């Protein structure tokens, strides 16, 4: 059935339409936007008092299927994404087996279609088995449906391999997403190196482990004149390096996660493994730099790095616990609370960072905007709704979030994917 959204205060990346509009969705497309639309045989959604934004795009999630379906599946991850207002997610290839061939890519796309809640696009590995050696068959991965490649979870450490990957991927037309972290500098560090790691007696991960790879990849992108996208930036120095690179016209883009602009390493003070994440939570100074980077365009987009882990896996000593936290269901709440309501970003800038920019970066041409002819992927947000993130309301299979019990302002009320309501908040 067709959908008609009435009284929609539309926010696109370039502007907020003060005058409410009606939006008619048919056969998965936005067919008409006008001040008042009359249509028969449609389901009507009244958006009075809400904001209506293009479906959110998260180009960095972990869905754990295949291999660790006890943590998350494509189905449970899709539900979590829909609840968070996301209509397109790109899942990282560090599954078991690794997403490094067309068979696995195809299997994931088929399963996501069967689930049918959101658009799931697998990210292929850069190197076979993510082993930092041979390149994957990139033409084949692209043909199977990949838009981007990454060895996320770790860097491509071998600089020559990264050079070859950048040259080859550029020819194929795939984006490379780099997890920036020199493992020799990280050594066995599991939290930010600083006073807190010293106090806790936990091995520190120095920020330079990230920034030296940022600098290396910027140099490679400059030399080869190719693109590179830098994942989950956590550091002031990284922001400064990217700002410099962009000023030189180097084709680098970058992303940041809500937890990195919300929490400092104080969050792990009582050995809370739910706040153990890679890259680690850093300092106030880094948070300010990340916010500034988002504001001035140095950082292009916001991603969740949604990383589900079971309670059993997290319920061990801090050094033994796996890295990562779930993020799909808190991303809008945190971004609204920490950035929009605190005056760092405007609503159109939020739409840019969470929908238009990520869609553009990976080359999704009919997503990221509410415009006639674009895909009928739409998210309705109640911008001033105050709510508390409760553990028993989490729909992800995993509950590993340091934000449980946190009060937020701004909540997803409804998610439409391909012209169908895939999530509706009934509270």
């Amino acid at each position: 059935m067709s959908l008609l959204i009435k009284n929609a205060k539309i926010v696109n990346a370039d502007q907020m339409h003060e005058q409410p509009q009606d939006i008619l969705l048919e056969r998965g497309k936005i067919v008409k936007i006008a001040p008042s639309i009359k249509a028969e045989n449609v389901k009507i959604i009244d958006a009075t008092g809400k904001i209506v934004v293009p479906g959110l795009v998260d180009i960095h999630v972990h869905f754990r299927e295949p291999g660790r379906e006890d943590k998350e599946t494509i189905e449970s991850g899709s539900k979590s994404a829909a609840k968070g207002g996301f209509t397109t997610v790109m899942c990282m290839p560090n599954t078991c087996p690794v997403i490094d061939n067309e068979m696995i890519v195809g299997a994931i796309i088929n399963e996501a279609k069967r689930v049918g809640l959101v658009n799931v696009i697998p990210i292929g590995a850069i190197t076979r088995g993510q082993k930092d050696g041979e390149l994957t068959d990139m033409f084949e991965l692209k043909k199977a449906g990949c838009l981007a490649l990454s060895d996320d979870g770790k860097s491509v450490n071998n600089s020559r391999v990264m050079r070859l990957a950048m040259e080859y991927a550029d020819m194929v037309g795939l984006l490379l997403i780099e997890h920036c972290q020199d493992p020799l500098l990280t050594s066995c560090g599991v939290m930010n190196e600083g006073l807190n790691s010293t106090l806790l007696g936990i091995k520190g991960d120095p920020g330079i482990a990230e920034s030296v790879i940022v600098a290396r990849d910027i140099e490679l992108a400059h030399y080869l004149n190719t693109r590179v996208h830098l994942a989950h930036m956590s550091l002031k120095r990284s922001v400064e390096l990217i700002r410099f690179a962009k000023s030189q016209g180097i084709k680098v883009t970058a992303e940041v996660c809500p937890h990195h602009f919300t929490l400092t390493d104080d969050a792990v003070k009582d050995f809370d493994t739910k706040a153990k994440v890679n890259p680690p939570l850093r300092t106030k100074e880094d948070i300010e730099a990340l916010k500034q980077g988002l504001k001035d365009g140095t950082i292009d987009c916001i991603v969740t790095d949604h990383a589900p882990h079971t309670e059993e896996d997290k319920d061990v000593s801090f050094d033994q616990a796996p890295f990562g936290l779930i993020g799909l269901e808190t991303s809008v709440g945190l971004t609204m609370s920490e950035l929009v309501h605190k005056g760092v970003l405007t609503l159109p800038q939020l739409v840019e960072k969470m929908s238009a920019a990520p869609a553009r970066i990976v080359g999704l041409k009919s997503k990221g905007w509410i415009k006639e002819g674009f895909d009928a992927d739409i998210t309705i947000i109640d911008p001033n709704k105050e709510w508390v993130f409760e553990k028993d309301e989490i729909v992800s299979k995993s509950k590993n979030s340091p934000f449980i019990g946190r009060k937020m302002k701004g909540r997803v009320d409804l998610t439409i994917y391909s012209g169908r309501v895939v999530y509706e908040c009934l509270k």
Partner: protein
Amino acid sequence: MSEWTKHNLIDLKDLTKEEIELILDTAKSFKEISTRDVKKVPTLRGKTVVMLFFESSTRTRLSFELAAKRLSADTLSVAASSSSMTKGESILDTARNIEAMNVDMIVVRHKSSGVPNILADGLKASVINAGDGCRAHPTQALLDIFTIRERFGKVAGLNVGIVGDILHSRVARSNIWGLKTMGAHITVCGPSTLMPRGIEQLGVKVSHNIDEVIASSDALMLLRLQQERQEDKFLPSTREYAKVFGVNRAKLKNAKKHLLIMHPGPTNRGVELSSDVADGEFSVILSQVTNGVAIRMAILYLLLGTKDKLELEGKI
């Protein structure tokens, strides 16, 4: 005298000056018991104390066992290699199973920082941290402070040097907390590659000059240079470390007459200290070991006393 209210001892960071003084005073009165012909009092008769050691230890485990036995508590030791942890059981499950046999106290040592917190949060039994990762070793620091106070009659205002691998040392961290609380001035000294980041923010001086630290110190704690650090390439060589940071008789020529040379053991003779220093007139290394039993008796007594009280009041 202040009242003791805690039933766990995890980190000296959590203790006030009054609480530390109470432990030291209690230990002082217990010390004499170990010199008696019959080295036993009935204070903790009927209590059960389990040593859960996931890391090797001779001195600390023995010291805890003797302390418990001299107070008439029953003790048991579980070594990591023989525990069901090797069969995949989680540490909290292991500890809960031990507790289910009506154990009053668990003394735990583990290579991971924070493990004693996991046990303290999940158990009713009292938990004592006998060393966790690089983070804390509170009973060692307390016996060190006891030894210093015993010799000088005070701790406040004294200059204490801590020398060696500060980065990986839980002994150094606990001593920094305890000694700062007691009003001592602390200088940490060691190679720059073994100095943790941000340490100066704890209010300690950082030095790389052992001669200066020796000259200004009233007490000097030498830490064991763990052999694996050299394999991790933190240092050019053990030989160079011994030459530059090792303490020998010649280096002590400008030392204060009353300087105490301390070491938590086990010592690497010829590396962090020479034999003539380890066995010389400045050394109080064996006094530390003796005092360790008294300190642990005091802690067992205070913690189990609180536990009984809390149980009586229905709070745990």
